């Protein structure tokens, strides 16, 4: 049976090879950038890609670059604007049907955003004059321009973006300051202590835990410390394969600059286009290729952080130490409550010789999870392996660009026929795993075979590189898609957890069902999109990601309903043995569960550290504790 299917699969591949020229296979060193935005080649890499006035290239009330967005054109077809992405400029013919069918939405019913920021809605800054003067005297770049302040008053939680789209502006920082090096930060923190102002570190602004929200009860002047100008790679040590980098650098710049020197960190969180190194450290980030490179805690060798008590760092670059509890672990995940991470020494690796996407179709989600579990058991997970459920598989399909050649569409038809009719997969149950292999060519091919062999044992059929690549593309454009949804009364968000293997299926089913049920109970007319995928595998469990969105037409307070449902979903996750967060962090959004998650004593430990490091609560963003 397995050999039968793999030989049939082999035949299909050969047919595919005949029908289609595959230029990618020749120049094999294409990196993951294919999926994400490509920086214009002409630009020298030393230029700062993140300007101080971010609003010049990025949306003030939505995700990502101003020039890139989804829209339905006059013919009702979806397209993606701009030139930065592979999808840019392409028509997505099936998105409209999927969108209308899934959400019961209608292109006639629009809910457009306020076009521009109403400056009068922004409260005048509450300035601590002596502090500002001292900053200026120290030669630091400072602004209290309303646009700058509004831009740094939020992350990308649904309620934050929704409010901006409606033109509602809450408490915003009173001052923005841009340090350009570690010493600047030391100065700023010193002055903040002296004048007792509240500092909120700001990196890429991609938080989804309300971590950047200004605490309502804060009466002091709030200063947003924007690290974006601290973006240099200070040195690269090729003997030890480490790089010393300023913490404000954003993921894509770091990776690009290292690539130019033949290296990479391999840390690729889905937000890497915008999120910063310091942010990764402060939230315990995870990258999709952690199976090869590790999560952020595995990647850091040395961290330098400025706290109100002074600078905390280790004295050497030893790869591991037994010196009591690892002080890095007070910093990792501290979410800006203890200080500002200024410089980080990271492990680097040579850029892999060869990279290959892949995908496997399974008859159902259970089989898919069983396969991932087996892959994890054999410790042979590729750089990335993700399993999408059926709804997400269909979502991915809706993002297929218009096919240019009749052969491709013929081939697609043939594949579909083969899978659903010949192999008897039910299109409403099948699900797909996307794969990314990395390494030297020979090993990648060998590795690929091993994984596909395991998959075959669970009824999986290899389904080509395209499907795989599209799966990864989805992660980079999903946030843009949310903005499109919000133009048509659809709101949604994602959240994640980690869970032991034996509970993955139960947790996925229960949380999805809970979402559907809670929506119904709260009067949401059309059943929501409630979908999940397994995005990371570990020895003892997996990371699961949920997408949840619904049509809110006719609801008076959709955001509140959204929040109630998300709250219920989190309760369900915790009740099913899932963690409070795998990598998004706690922020203010999930604070209420901290005590239950880490025990009263655990919380007390963290509090006492905060008490010692920052007795004045200078870093008063109110996250975590």
């Amino acid at each position, binding site marked *: 049976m397995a050999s039968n299917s793999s030989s049939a699969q082999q035949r299909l591949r050969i047919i595919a090879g005949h029908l289609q020229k595959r230029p990618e296979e020749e120049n094999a060193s294409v990196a993951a950038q294919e999926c994400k935005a490509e920086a214009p080649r002409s630009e020298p890499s030393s230029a700062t890609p993140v300007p101080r006035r971010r609003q010049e290239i990025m949306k003030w009330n939505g995700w990502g670059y101003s020039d890139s967005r989804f829209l339905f054109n006059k013919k009702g077809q979806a397209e993606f604007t701009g030139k930065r992405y592979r999808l840019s400029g392409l028509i997505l013919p099936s998105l409209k049907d999927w969108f209308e069918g899934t959400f019961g939405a209608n292109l006639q019913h629009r809910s457009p955003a306020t076009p521009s920021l109403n400056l009068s809605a922004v409260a005048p800054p509450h300035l601590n004059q002596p502090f500002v003067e001292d900053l200026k005297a120290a030669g630091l770049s400072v602004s209290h321009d309303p646009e700058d302040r509004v831009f740094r008053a939020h992350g990308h939680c649904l309620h934050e973006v929704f409010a901006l789209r409606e033109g509602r502006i809450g408490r915003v920082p009173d001052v923005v300051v841009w340090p350009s090096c570690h010493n600047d930060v030391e100065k700023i923190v010193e002055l903040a202590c002296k004048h007792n102002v509240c500092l909120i570190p700001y990196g890429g602004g991609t938080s989804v835990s309300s971590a950047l929200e200004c605490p309502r009860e804060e009466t002091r002047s709030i200063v947003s410390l924007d690290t974006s100008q601290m973006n240099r790679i200070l040195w690269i040590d090729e003997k030890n394969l480490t790089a010393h980098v300023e913490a404000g650098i954003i993921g894509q710049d770091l990776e690009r600059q290292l690539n130019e020197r033949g290296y990479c960190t391999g840390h690729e969180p889905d937000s890497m286009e915008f999120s910063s190194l310091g942010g990764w450290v402060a939230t315990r980030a995870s990258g999709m290729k952690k199976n090869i490179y590790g999560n952020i805690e595995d990647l850091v060798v040395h961290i330098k952080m400025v706290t109100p008590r002074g600078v905390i760092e280790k004295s050497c670059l030893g790869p591991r130490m037994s010196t009591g509890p690892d002080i890095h672990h007070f910093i990792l995940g501290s979410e800006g409550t203890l200080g500002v991470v200024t410089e980080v020494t990271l492990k680097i690796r040579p850029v892999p010789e060869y990279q290959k996407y892949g995908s496997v179709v399974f008859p159902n989600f259970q089989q898919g999870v069983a396969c991932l579990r087996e892959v994890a058991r054999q410790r042979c997970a590729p750089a990335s392996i993700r399993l999408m459920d059926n709804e997400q598989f269909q979502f991915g399909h809706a993002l297929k660009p218009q096919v240019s050649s009749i052969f491709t569409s013929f081939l697609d038809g043939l594949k579909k026929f083969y899978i659903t009719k010949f192999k008897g997969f039910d299109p409403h149950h099948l699900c797909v795993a996307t794969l990314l292999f990395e390494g030297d060519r020979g090993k990648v091919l060998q590795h690929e075979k091993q994984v596909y062999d395991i998959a075959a044992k669970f009824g999986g059929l290899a389904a080509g590189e395209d499907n795989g690549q599209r799966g990864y593309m989805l992660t980079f454009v999903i946030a843009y898609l949310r903005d499109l949804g919000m133009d048509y009364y659809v709101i949604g968000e994602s959240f994640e957890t980690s869970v032991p293997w*034996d*509970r993955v299926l*139960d*947790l996925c*089913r*229960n949380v999805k*069902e*809970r979402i559907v049920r809670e929506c119904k109970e709260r009067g949401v007319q059309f059943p929501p999109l409630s979908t999940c995928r397994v995005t990371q595998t570990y020895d003892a469990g997996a990371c699961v990601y949920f997408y949840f969105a619904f049509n809110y037409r006719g609801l008076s307070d959709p955001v509140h309903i959204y929040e109630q449902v998300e709250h219920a979903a989190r309760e369900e996750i*915790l*009740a*099913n*043995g899932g963690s409070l967060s795998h990598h998004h962090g706690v922020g203010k959004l999930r604070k209420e569960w901290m005590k*239950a998650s880490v025990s009263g004593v655990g919380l007390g430990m963290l509090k006492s550290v905060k008490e010692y490091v920052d007795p004045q609560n200078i870093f008063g963003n109110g996250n975590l504790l």
Partner: protein
Amino acid sequence: MLKKRDDFEDILEERRRSSDLRYALRCYTPTLYRGLVPCKASMLKSIVLQSDHLQYVIKQVSSESGESTEGVSEEASLILDEMAHCLQLSTIRFFAFTLSKAFKRLFRSVCVNEEGIQRLQQAVQEHPVVLLPSHRSYMDFLMMSYLLYTYDLPLPVIAAGMDFMSMKFVGEMLRMSGAFFIRRSFGGDKLYWAVFSEYVKTMLRNGYAPIEFFLEGTRSRTCKSLTPKTGLLNIVMEPFFKGELFDVNLVPVSISYERILEESLYARELLGIPKPKESTSGLLKARRVLSEDYGSMYVYFGHPVSVRSLAEGKINRSQYNLLPRYIPQKPSADTHEFLSDAAFRLVRIQEENMVLKPWVLIATLLLQNPDGLDLSSLAEQTDWLRHLALAFGAFLDWPDHEACSEVVSCSLALHRHLLSVSAGHVQLSVTDVPQVETTPEEAVFHQAVVVLSCASYRNQILHVFLRPALLAMAMQSANSNRKDDVYNGFNFLRKVFSNEFILCPGDSVQDFEEACYLLMKRGVLQVLEHEIVMSASGHSTLAFLSSVLDPFLQGYQVVCRYLCEETNENLTEKEFIPAVRSFALKLILAGNTCYEALSSDLQKNALAAFLRLKAVRKLCLFTFLFLCHTGGKIPTQKPILARL
């Protein structure tokens, strides 16, 4: 207070009009659970035997006992063989045919609330379903399967006591119609418990079939609901607690009989005339029952109760996070409390949906008037009682356009074997006893059979009057009208009788308020801020209510007197019942009328209550009781006992 209840449909009507054979052979396509994992009965066994849970327990048992794992596995497999059902549609069809015939002879009608069936249809599709019927007769589960077949619902698998298995042919028949058999007691047997619980859970998780069991554990011989057992309830809830199922729907079903088939059998059993062992020949002999008229039967399917919503805010499911789920875990104290609370609530739902016939009212009145009543005054009082019962929310099935006297005489006719009617005077009495010379003791027992049979009808309505009656009693024995005095008395009575009646532990304030509310609404009481005052017109109602509970109070008093007067230091548990019985017999022969004190059910409940209240102490398991009674140690009990 008056609840909207569904209308009934008589399913026998259709059976009387069309062919039973065609009905038994019709196309049966039940609605199925949407998450169903299709599997055969034989596959079920191997899933159970290979489950992580059972494998874990097998290894544990083997390492504890030194037996080989193969040996223990073999043992587990044998247990499963003994237990497992092998549901076959052909058997169901056979039953559909024969039961149609039987039901038509036995009953005038079998009434079902079709809205309940529709709700069940919905529930069956959404989540795995557990059916929780009340248990008054052997008929119950046959009827349940019969109904589900009739309405194209999935056939249940039914937890049945092992005693059925001994009926050679019938046991196997029941097995083929979906019964699985559990030993009555397997307290410490880990392996048995593991096989049993895994078997039930597997069926539930896979949505194999609705699970049916009796919360009360056994048939109630007295027609009062029995204190529910929580063991099986825990098993069916655990898959939800552990996240293996999103939800489980519990469907309480109330089955009531106008006349119970086992009526006098039960009375005899309660009086210590041993229950005939279940045997096929015994069943055949019971054919005689087929020739009698048992009136109507009612089956009310209650609203499905979601375990998820029951547990909301009461069970912290993350308590199961830190242990692999296949390792059996004793329920925590919280869980225990929740289970017992849920079980009580479910039994109360069963009670509330139990249909009551006019005879129940008449039986109540006749028991209160041992010397009998004139027909006219019986009719008048029945009518009064009917209004009282309705005001208290009783689910009374009273014929619509008939005069009260008409209704009364119809009821009397159906139950004539318990009565003597002469010259317009009705009295409970022995009718069908041969007029040979009997000893006085025998005469007492004959009369007691009648009284206990009749009491089993009165008991059906007790849940309606219970709380107001406790309040009425408390008011009579309280020294003052002060609310807290009355409440203390109420609370004490509640404690004394909590083995006798369904009183949710911890609900005493609620119960008290409910009682006050009902009596206030009826104009019997005025409830002021600190006082409870009887209104002028309230006397008769209060008198009636407290005499409803009188037989129980008297019975408990007899047990108490026996313990105080007759026993020396030690008494074995075995000796207790016969000893109390002969003590009560002596009292009756001396002119007391406490017939219900002869009931072994009451005696056991009283003993359990005294044990619980620490008036009596159990010295060592199964052997000795030591009494630390002597009045002074149970002071609160004194005023009430003194009053009698």
